[in-house]
Structures are given as C-alpha cells and as structure tokens.
C-alpha cells in the first residue's frame, strides 16, 4: 500500500512509441521475408536497429533517473513486481514447448504406434511404425538422424550454468558488502560462463547439422529439441547482454546496497534461465 505521497510519475515518454515502431517494422519485414519478398530483410534490419536504439535510450534514461535518486522505495517495488511477473510470463512460454514435448512423447507418438484404442490407426495408416523415442515419425521426416547424448557437452553446459549462478550470487554479496572488486569480478565471470555456454551450444548445433543429420526438420524430435534449446539459448544471450550492461554500470560506480534493482532483475532473469536449462537437461537430454 502507498505510504508516501512522492510517487514518481514520468511524463511525455517518446521511447515506447519508437520501440513499437521498431518492432512493427521488424515483424512486418520478417513476414515479408517469409513470403519471399526481397525488401523484407532490409525492413527487418532497420526495425531491429530502431529497437536496439530504443532499448539503449530507454535504459540509459532509467539508469540516469535511478542514479539521480528519483525513485522511491515504492517505485522500486513496482519495478520488482514488473520483473517478477514478466519472468512468470516467460515460464509460461517455455511451458508450452515442454508441454508439446510431453504430449508427443507420452500421447501422440504412442497412439501412432497403436497404443490404447488406436490399434486400427496403426494397422491402417502406418503398420511398420514403431513408437520409440527419439523419432521423426512414421513419415521419417528429415531422414535418418542421431539423437543428442546427455553426458558430453550438455552435461558440461549444465555445470557451467550452475557455476554461473553461484558467481552471480557471489557478485551480489560483493555489492551488498560494498566490495566493488568482488562485484565486478563476479559479474565478469558470470558473463564469461554465459558466453562459454553459448559457444558450446553453437558447436553442438554445428555437430548436429553436419555430422548427426539432426536438424529442425527431423520430425518431432528435431522440432522439440531445437525449439526448446534454441529459445533457451536465445534467452541465455539476452541474459548475458543484460548482465554485461549491469557489469558496465557496476564499473561506472552505479548501484548501492540499498538501491540496485537492475542488478536484482538481471540476477533473477539469469537464475530463471538456469532453471529452465535444468528442465531441458532432464527432459530433453537425459530422459
């Protein structure tokens, strides 16, 4: 509940409408590109540039306002609630793809193999199909492929992300103890581990495409594998960018033990990405 009457209300915001324009150009351009129009990519690039300028401008503005002490505790709570529920919406987005994986592995693929009341389906449509996982379906969509093992790079990546969670928390302790050196080192290590994760993931993708015959088009296994790990990898990149900005701001001397919402939000986001990976490691790679 509101306890003070100096709530900060910004006026005349120009970044939101600029960002909206950027997004609109980017998506309209992408749609045109998918439809085979040659102008599509140019619009996408332009839209992306506008969007990035918007992000830089808007966050610079917010950081400046925060550092000049314009935000009360109450504003900080609003921001924290905003970040919390944003992460919840992201969890729901990943839940869809986990749900699709669950549904195909436990329901639709066994049904195609004749489980339950679907014996006739199998006999009449695809008598030769055996319901095993991984599969690219009765149509062998995408041709032969190998599935991705869990205990090589993916396991290493698990350790990397878990370690990065620890280093992120270590940096937070440094911030709270006003230990600038620990804060910056901890963040740098976290960003570095994040980039290492992305590099390993990229090499895994490269191997999948060039040596294992495993692509996005490898039936339902390829679809779920690449969509889940791909969206996760994208989120790791975004998280690493956010942490880099926080690192830059820490180096500039921003953040106090009692006022560091940006750091907290970045850390929450990073832990969220971490937890999603644990789910991926178990449900996509191990099981």
């Amino acid at each position: 509940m509101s306890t003070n009457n100096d709530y900060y209300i910004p006026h005349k915001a120009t970044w939101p409408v600029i960002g909206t324009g950027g997004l609109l150009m980017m998506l309209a351009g992408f749609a045109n590109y998918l439809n085979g129009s040659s102008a599509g990519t140019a619009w996408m690039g332009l839209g992306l540039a506008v969007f990035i300028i918007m992000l830089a401008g808007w966050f610079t503005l917010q950081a400046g306002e925060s550092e000049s002490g314009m935000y009360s505790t109450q504003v900080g709570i609003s921001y924290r609630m905003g970040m919390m529920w944003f992460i919840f919406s992201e969890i729901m987005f990943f839940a869809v793809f986990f749900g699709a994986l669950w549904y195909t592995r436990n329901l639709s693929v066994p049904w195609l193999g004749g489980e339950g009341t679907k014996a006739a389906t199998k006999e009449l449509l695809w008598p030769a199909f055996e319901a095993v996982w991984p599969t690219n379906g009765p149509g062998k969509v995408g041709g032969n492929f190998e599935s991705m093992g869990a205990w090589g790079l993916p396991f290493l990546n698990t350790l990397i992300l878990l370690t990065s969670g620890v280093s992120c928390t270590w940096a937070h302790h440094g911030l709270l103890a006003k230990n600038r050196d620990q804060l910056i080192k901890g963040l740098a290590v976290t960003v570095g581990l994040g980039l290492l994760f992305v590099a390993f993931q990229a090499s895994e993708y490269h191997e999948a495409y060039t040596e294992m015959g495993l692509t996005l088009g490898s039936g339902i296994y390829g679809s779920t594998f690449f969509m889940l790990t791909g969206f996760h990898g994208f989120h790791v990149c975004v998280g690493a960018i956010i942490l880099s900005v926080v690192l830059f701001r820490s180096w500039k001397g921003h953040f106090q033990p009692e006022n560091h919402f940006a750091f907290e939000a970045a850390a929450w986001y990073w832990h969220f990405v971490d937890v999603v990976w644990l789910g991926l490691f178990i449900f996509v790679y191990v099981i």
Partner: protein
Amino acid sequence: MSAVVAEHDDHHDHGPAKGLLRWVITTNHKDIGTLYLLFALAMFFVGGAMAMVIRAELFEPGMQFVNPQFFNSMTTMHALVMVFGAVMPAFVGLANWMIPMMIGAPDMALPRMNNMSFWLLVAGVLLLASTLFMEGGAPASGWTLYPPLVLQTGKALPFAIFSVHLLGISSIMGAINIIATIFNMRAPGMTLMKMPMFVWTWLITAFLLIAIMPVFAGAVTMLLTDKFFATSFFDAAGGGDPVLYQHIFWFFGHPEVYVMILPTFGVASTIIPVFARKPLFGYSSMVHATAAIAFLSFIVWAHHMFTVGMPIAGELYFMYATMLIAIPTGVKVFNWTATMWKGSMTFETPMLFSIAFVVLFTMGGFTGLMMSVAPADFQYHDTYFIVAHFHYTLVPASIFILMAAGYFWLPKWTGHMYDERIGKLHFWLSVISVNVLFFPQHFLGLAGMPRRIPDYAVQFADWNMISSIGGFIFGASQLLFLYIVIHTIKGGTGEKVTSEVWEDAAKHSLEWTLPSPPPYHTFTTPPTVIPTEHI
C-alpha cells in the same frame, strides 16, 4: 523527456503536451484510458461491419454477396477484431481510467510501459487488418487458427501470427501494470477486501492474461515454424499431432473468454448496488467466486474438443470439471439478484443494461451448461447452437456491460450528462434486437445448421432471415451509442453534473469523490476516507 516528482516540484508538474503529440507520448492513465476506449469503439464498428457482411450473406439460402473464402475470412476476422480489438481493449481502457481513481493512486504503477501497451495494440491490429488486402485473403480458418487448415492461408499467415505476438506482448504489459498498480499503489486504508469489485475482477483477470498470452504466442510460433521452418509439431507424419494445437489453443482460449467476462462481472457488481441503493450482497463471496472461476478456467479447456477423439476418461473429466463452473457463477447471479431484492431501484440506462446483462448472461450460462454434457455436445458441436451460446455471453453480457459502463462513467469522464431519452431508446432497441438476432440461432443449431458455412439448406431459411433482421437492427442501433458518446463529449444535455453524478455514489467508490471531469492528476495525495458502502 522530462520527469516530475509529484507534490514536491509543483512548478514542474505541467499538464499534457500540446496538440496531437499529447496522445502519442502520454503517460497519463486517463489519456491512455481514453485512447483504449476510443480505439475499442472504432474496432467495435469495424468488427460489427464484418458481422453485417455475415448476416447479409446468410439472409437467405444460396450465395448472395461474397464468395465462400471471403465469408470465412469475415467470420475469422470478425472474431479476432472483436476479441482482441474491441472487448479486451475496452476493458483495459476502463481499467486504466478507473483503477487508479478507485484505489486512490496518482497513476498506474508503470506509466511508460502503459503507453507502450497501447501502441503495441495498435501495431498488432494494424498487422491483422493488413491481411484483408493480401494475396490469398485474410485468415479464413476461424479465430482458433487450427492447423492444418490455417497453414493453407496465403501471404496473410505470418502477418496474422506476428499480430498475435504483438497483441500478446501488449496484453502482458497491461496485465503486469495492473497487478503492480493494485498491489503497490493503494491508498492507506484501502485493504484488499475493501477494493471495489471492478478492481478485484481486474486483478484476477490480469493473472489470467499473464498466464495465457505466452501460451497462445507459443502455439502460433509452432504454426510459423511448421509452415516455414520444416518442424512437425502438428504433422502426424513427423510424429506430431494437429490435436496438440487444439489442446494448447484452448488452454489459452478458455481462460481467454474469462478475460472478457470477469471484468464484465466487476462492472456489473459496481453498477447494480448504486442503482439498487444497497450494498453489494455477499461482497467476499463475490471475490472468492471470481477467483474460483479463474482457477477452474485453467482445468476445463478440452470441453471445446469433445468430438476430437479424446480418451473416454478425458471426456468425463472435462465434462464434470466444466459443470463445476456453474457453482461460482451461480453464486454471482444469486448475489446480483439479492442486491436488487427490496432495493430502492431506479432504472437509468446503466442499470437497464446491467439488469439485461444479469438475465441474458444467465441464459448464455445455461446453454453452456447444456454443452458441458459431453454426449449432448456431440450433437451441438460446430452448429449454430454454440454460436448462439457464446454470443449470449459476449454481446448481451460483455458488450452490454461495456455500454452500461459508458453510460455510468461518461458523466464522470466528461463532466457532461448524456441524453437519457436516447440512452433508453438505445437500450430498448438493443435488448430486443439482440434477442431477435441470437435466440433463433439456438433453434438453427439444434436443427443441425453448421457454423462457418456461407450457404445452407432451405429448411433453415426462416430463422436465418429473422436472425439477420435482428442483426441489422442491432447494428444500426449501435450508431445511437456512437452519437451519444460524441454528443456527451461535446457538452451533452448541458446539465451540470456533480462530482457524485449518481445518488450516494461516493459512498460506494472513490472516483465519485473527485470533480467531474476529474483534473489531469488526481490523488497526488492519498485520500483519507475509504468508502465501504459497496462491501
């Protein structure tokens, strides 16, 4: 960009920007609320025009005006425009205007994001509307966008999908803002269980939105990759399943229809006590019933899919779970009736629309209960019975309550009184024609007329013609509302309205303690007295 610390730097606390730019860069909850409401009203007429095309084509058997492809585009676009362009934005507009004033807050919690929510909505609707002019036409698969049919859409497909993404981001931002506002910005003394019902229903709706919009975004993303990037989510040959899409869609879609009805309940619970001159009957049971309906909405989705070929245990589970919803909904209808019981009622236009809502929504609820019975639904599925059902829960429910809200709060927003005579005329024309329009569709459905078909057997001719006549009258009647809105903004009856507008309204809710129209910034200091008459 400038910024203000309200109260401390009053000389910096300027009003809105000059000229049209004011509306583009505004962060003021009243400005943004107005933008949402006007945009929704415009889309109501765009979507309504599409409905007129549908009813004109169905006026008699045979092909009249449009080809089947365009007819199906019209049913699809009518639904998408009405749901995402009209009803949802109208309620977000009401939330923007009313929630800060009702809880005694100076503005929304995240004003810049509020601006972006609105403009993303416009961008999303622009992308959607652009598909009407594309090679292959607008999407014609129905608003559910089921594969594999929707994958046959022409150039419009990626535009429609990205439109859903933008509308989703817009809704999530709006919902996050509403949650942060309600949890963090209430005036001292405004405890959760003293909040007006409208605020409560929006709080719960906001949680629904954050949970479901990403789900819809995920579903259409899979459509996009299935079409353009060779994935097999909805293709059995690759091990996927088109039914998977239906499960994901309705996991979104069922809570989505409650996104449109819960704020409706909230407005009804706000208006009825004022004109019955009694406190709302069973305030806390209303709160709990709303939460119960929201929870149940997540575990009933497959009742939209009874005929798709689910295991029998699934049919039974979804049947009984769906029936449970009738209990909290019944609590609500009972409470509205009990609120009116022995009240000193008067029947101004907002109250008339609200009473019509209670009666007609209940009818829509009952047909819903009929369809929850899985074996019976095998008969009703995909017929005009379901069309009649959900239009009863949307038009004489959500739309009527939006009209009621307009009449109820227009004097507060503008400081002018609307013309009660024309308001009543609008009501009576609407309430009669809406029943002429939709009631016969029950008969058509029970007799087996399929939905989303531009032509039909001659046995359905009579009721279709009656339904179309009702539709034309209903459509034309809404022009009266447009007239009233413009007329009221421009000065209305000329009568000076008080801050309370309606008798003793200030005892129910804080917005009636403010002048009409309220100043650009309100509650820069929190109010000290919290009204409790509504409880």
